[in-house]
């Protein structure tokens, strides 16, 4: 408290900030980044453990008969059924009859997908889920567990694993579970069509919520509150290992206990469990081990950052149902494959443990990152380094704020900004005099205890004057491109209103002076948000693919965003000109960026981390300069960290991840296609599943970035 009330101490703090903020913020960022990445190193993270003692994992021995003959029977029957169908689709009718003949309450659930955009398929798509409820004989039917398997046709199986094994395993386990007397919760067997959409429809119907794009019929029957769900993606062959997929919608993760449970039980049945298809290294403390775990961690974060569910389990998280996908991976080569029977024992064990649950999962972590299957990084471990990274920007903002308000401060501080500027200059290798800080109104009527500051002040004020006189520096280097849009007019009016209050541009130092820029960038954000919907509504006649329309539409809005600093700086009457202090713009930008990143980090740490890692250094460095070379570099860096740029980088990364053998050009070419696909998927996720990623990008990341984009165009 003393710091805030004692003016003397405050002066010291302010002076320290002004003097050291540059070095300090760079240091903070680097320390934060290194620390964050170092968390994958074994001694810095923690071993997983069970918090929920009700689970009693692995204490019970399997009830399945030796060899599990019914599994083989179902596998063969299913194969025969599939081969009867020309398209090799999963035989829904047959599955329905099988479940029914087991004596389970079996139902069909129909739903309709209305495509959000006027897409080539204008007709609605009808889907059908099948589900069966095994009622707990001695329980109260107030709680339920879900075992789900996506129904995939052979056509869709090119990219994804087939789920025939999952269906056979589900049927075999259903027949086994039916005989068991120990169920305290109902078990729901769900076979969903159209991947996540089917699950979404079923969950919506189960919880009586509705969606405008996935219209689900009412459920003919339901059970109690769903405690957990296990999604199975298993091929009909032997599997080499089980890959556990956790990442859900909007980066939500299941409770860590559920993951631990799956890992523990697969270990017990000696089926290797992996994360992101990567096994745990033997020696995690070695350098190789660290590299391995770091890569696993980054891969997991990469998946989580997208905000898209990595499997059917991802939709359950929306309803606070802990869920994960067990994906069996079959490798043709090698003999170390394990039979499906062992996988069945893993699944059985998981369900028996879940059956022991007395409350919802709540004991263990919901916010964590995993570097391997047996280590975890909790929110308490990853927040401090992340905070350091973001605080670097906020500290810079604080320093800028103090600089712009240095007239309020005691004048003994005057020395500090000058020092800082020199540092900046030396750091950037630039010696121009025009770079001086804009310390407005400082000259008038303040007594200066230090005599040696006066020459400096003179120089600064002369700098100010010269700036006032200098006409616009940035004249069209690039074509003004695609503008003349709506926002230009809108903002001009808005800005005029604001400007009326003050005719002396240089005197506008309050936060109010940057409001036009802020308003403008948020309007552009709104445009980006609505653009896909509006554009696809108006362009059905263009005979373009929807994905193309969306990509080009977004690009147009983005270009408008790129051009807006030009538009705002057009030569107008002197008193109408919008002159925003670049420091203030940057200061506001950094604060908004800090707020955004912290807010996002609480929902999706991976997204926040990647955004912080790329945008914080650029946003800290950005400033107006007359050096064309430097400015081009700055603008290029800004372009790379723009939401579009990040999306493109993500596309490039995805392309290289999938096929690493491509040349650079081929990668870039494919990345464009991938960008289109990513953008389209983001939007589909947004409309069908309420994914936030696109909304965040257009309302949080884009406006913040636009603020920084405006900075190089400001007067200096």
């Amino acid at each position, binding site marked *: 408290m003393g710091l805030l009330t004692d003016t003397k101490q405050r002066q010291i703090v302010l002076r320290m900030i002004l003097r050291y903020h540059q070095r300090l913020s760079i240091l903070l960022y680097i320390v934060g980044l290194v620390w964050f990445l170092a968390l994958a190193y074994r001694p810095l993270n923690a071993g997983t453990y069970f918090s929920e003692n009700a689970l009693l994992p692995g204490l019970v021995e399997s009830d399945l008969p030796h060899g599990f003959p019914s599994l083989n029977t179902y596998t063969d029957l299913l194969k025969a059924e599939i081969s009867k169908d020309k398209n090799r689709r999963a035989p829904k009718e047959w599955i329905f009859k099988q479940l029914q003949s087991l004596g389970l309450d079996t139902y069909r659930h129909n739903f309709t997908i209305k495509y959000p955009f006027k897409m080539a398929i204008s007709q609605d798509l009808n889907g059908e889920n099948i589900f069966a409820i095994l009622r707990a004989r001695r329980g109260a039917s107030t709680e339920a567990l879900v075992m789900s398997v996506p129904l995939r046709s052979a056509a869709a199986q090119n990219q994804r694993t087939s789920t025939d094994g999952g269906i056979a395993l589900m049927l075999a386990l259903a027949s086994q579970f039916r005989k068991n007397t120990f169920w*305290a919760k109902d078990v729901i067997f769900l076979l969903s069509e159209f991947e996540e959409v089917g699950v979404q429809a079923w969950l919506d119907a189960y919880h009586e919520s509705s969606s405008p794009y996935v219209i689900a019929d009412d459920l003919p029957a339901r059970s109690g509150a769903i405690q957990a769900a296990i999604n199975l993606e298993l091929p009909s062959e032997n599997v080499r290992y089980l890959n556990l997929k956790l990442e859900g919608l909007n980066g939500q993760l299941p409770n860590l206990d559920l993951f631990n449970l799956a890992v523990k039980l697969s270990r017990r049945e000696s089926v290797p469990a992996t994360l992101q298809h990567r096994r745990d290294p033997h020696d995690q403390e070695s350098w190789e081990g660290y590299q391995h775990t770091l890569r696993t961690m980054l891969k997991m974060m990469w998946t989580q950052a997208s905000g898209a569910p990595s499997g059917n389990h991802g939709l359950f998280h929306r309803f606070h149902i802990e869920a994960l996908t067990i994906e069996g991976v079959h490798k043709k080569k090698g003999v170390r494959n394990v039979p499906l029977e062992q996988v069945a024992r893993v699944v059985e064990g998981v369900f028996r443990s879940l059956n022991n649950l007395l409350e919802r999962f709540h004991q263990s972590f919901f916010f964590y990152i995993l570097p391997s299957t047996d280590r975890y990084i909790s929110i308490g471990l990853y927040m401090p380094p992340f905070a350091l990274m973001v605080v670097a920007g906020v500290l810079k903002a604080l320093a800028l704020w103090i600089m712009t308000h240095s007239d309020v401060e005691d004048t003994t501080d005057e020395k500090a900004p000058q020092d800082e500027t020199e540092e900046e200059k030396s750091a950037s290798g630039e010696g121009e005099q025009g770079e001086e800080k804009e310390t407005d109104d400082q000259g008038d009527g303040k007594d200066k205890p230090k005599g040696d500051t006066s020459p400096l002040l003179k120089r600064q004020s002369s700098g100010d004057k010269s700036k006032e006189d200098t006409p616009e520096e940035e004249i069209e280097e690039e074509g003004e491109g695609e503008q003349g849009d709506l926002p230009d007019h809108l903002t001009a009016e808005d800005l005029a209103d604001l400007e009326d209050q003050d005719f002396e541009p240089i005197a506008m130092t309050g936060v109010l002076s940057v409001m036009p820029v802020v308003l403008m960038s948020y309007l552009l954000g709104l445009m980006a948000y609505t653009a896909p919907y509006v554009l696809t509504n108006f362009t059905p006649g263009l005979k373009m693919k929807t994905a193309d329309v969306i990509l080009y539409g977004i690009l147009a809005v983005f270009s408008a965003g790129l051009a807006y600093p030009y538009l705002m700086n057009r030569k107008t009457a002197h008193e109408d000109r919008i002159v925003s202090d670049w420091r203030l713009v940057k200061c506001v930008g950094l604060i908004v960026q800090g707020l955004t990143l912290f807010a996002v980090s609480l929902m999706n740490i991976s997204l926040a981390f990647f955004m912080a890692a790329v945008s914080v250094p650029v946003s800290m460095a950005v400033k107006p300069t007359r050096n064309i070379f430097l400015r081009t570099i700055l603008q290029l860096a800004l372009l790379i960290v723009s939401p579009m740029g990040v999306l493109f980088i993500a596309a490039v990364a995805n392309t290289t991840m999938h096929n690493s053998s491509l040349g650079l050009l081929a990668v870039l070419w494919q990345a464009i296609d991938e960008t289109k696909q990513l953008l389209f998927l983001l939007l589909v996720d947004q409309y069908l599943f309420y994914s936030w990623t696109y909304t965040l990008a257009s309302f949080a990341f884009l406006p913040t970035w636009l603020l920084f984009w405006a900075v190089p165009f400001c007067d200096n």
Partner: protein
Amino acid sequence: MADVFGMKVLLSFALLGAAFVFAGNEEKVQEFFKSGHTNNWAVLVDTSRFWFNYRHVANVLSIYRSVKRLGIPDSHIILMVADDMACNPRNPRPATVFNNAKQHINVYGDDVEVDYRGYEVTVENFIRVLTGRLSPSTPSSKRLLSDERSNVLVYMTGHGGDGFLKFQDAEEVSNVELADAFEQMWQKRRYHEVFFMIDTCQAESMFQKFYSPNILAVASSRVGEDSLSHHVDPALGVYVIDRYTYHALEFLEGVNPGSSKTMGQFLQVCPRHQCISTVSKRTDLFKRDPDKVLLTDFFGSVHNVELLQDTIKLQNVTLDSSSTTCVKDSCKKKAAPKQTLQYAEQFPSPF
């Protein structure tokens, strides 16, 4: 009053009326009345619920089975079980509770009389049962109707910490409360001797605050130690019994009603290599030497029958030591002795 009591002692222990005292029988008589109690009670408490605490229910039911086998009738056992494991839907063997993976004994077998079950097992009910402050409508099967000649076995199991024992996941009894409850019992003449046995983590802490006389206590672990479970039944998927109780039962199974095993031997049960925790005992409040106290003084209700040819002169144990002993006939002639014992008021009498 007191001489009536003296007669009761006589009647219950020397039922065969024709008894004549001879000097040679003195030792036998001493032996016969050594313990000083006339009836036995047991309060057996499992304080924890939920399926994963199966072992605690198995613990308490095992002790119940043992004391019943050794002669304490259901009417003298207050059994408190906080959850119904036998009927838990998760139990693959409905209506049974086993304390061993080999399933030798179904401890929830025939004729189990649970007096307080489920949510009736609360700290308040427990303390009320001990101190006798139950509402008048409470049936006698749910009351601890002990008197100053009662030996009471109190067994508790559940989840505990340093200075407390958790009840039902919602409340706990502290060691101070428990000590005060025993003191109240003592002042109300509700016991002659108490054997307090507890199997929980940091169990020792529960008897550290005791200050009432005639209490012998044993606990499964020291402060700072955990009490561990013994083994899992893989068919059930739960731990079925705790280590201390397991080994205590092993010992008790070798005891029959006429056994001469002593409390001293029982206190040696479960050394550290078996329990992993250190079994802790408290003997300072107990006046007798545990090595000379029969195990059945607490775990059984043994009605000895000794056939003597002679009439013996019995000391009236309820009177002051100064007062002389008397035989059935001679007592009446004497003036009523000064009354030294009286019950404390329990409920304010309406009359």
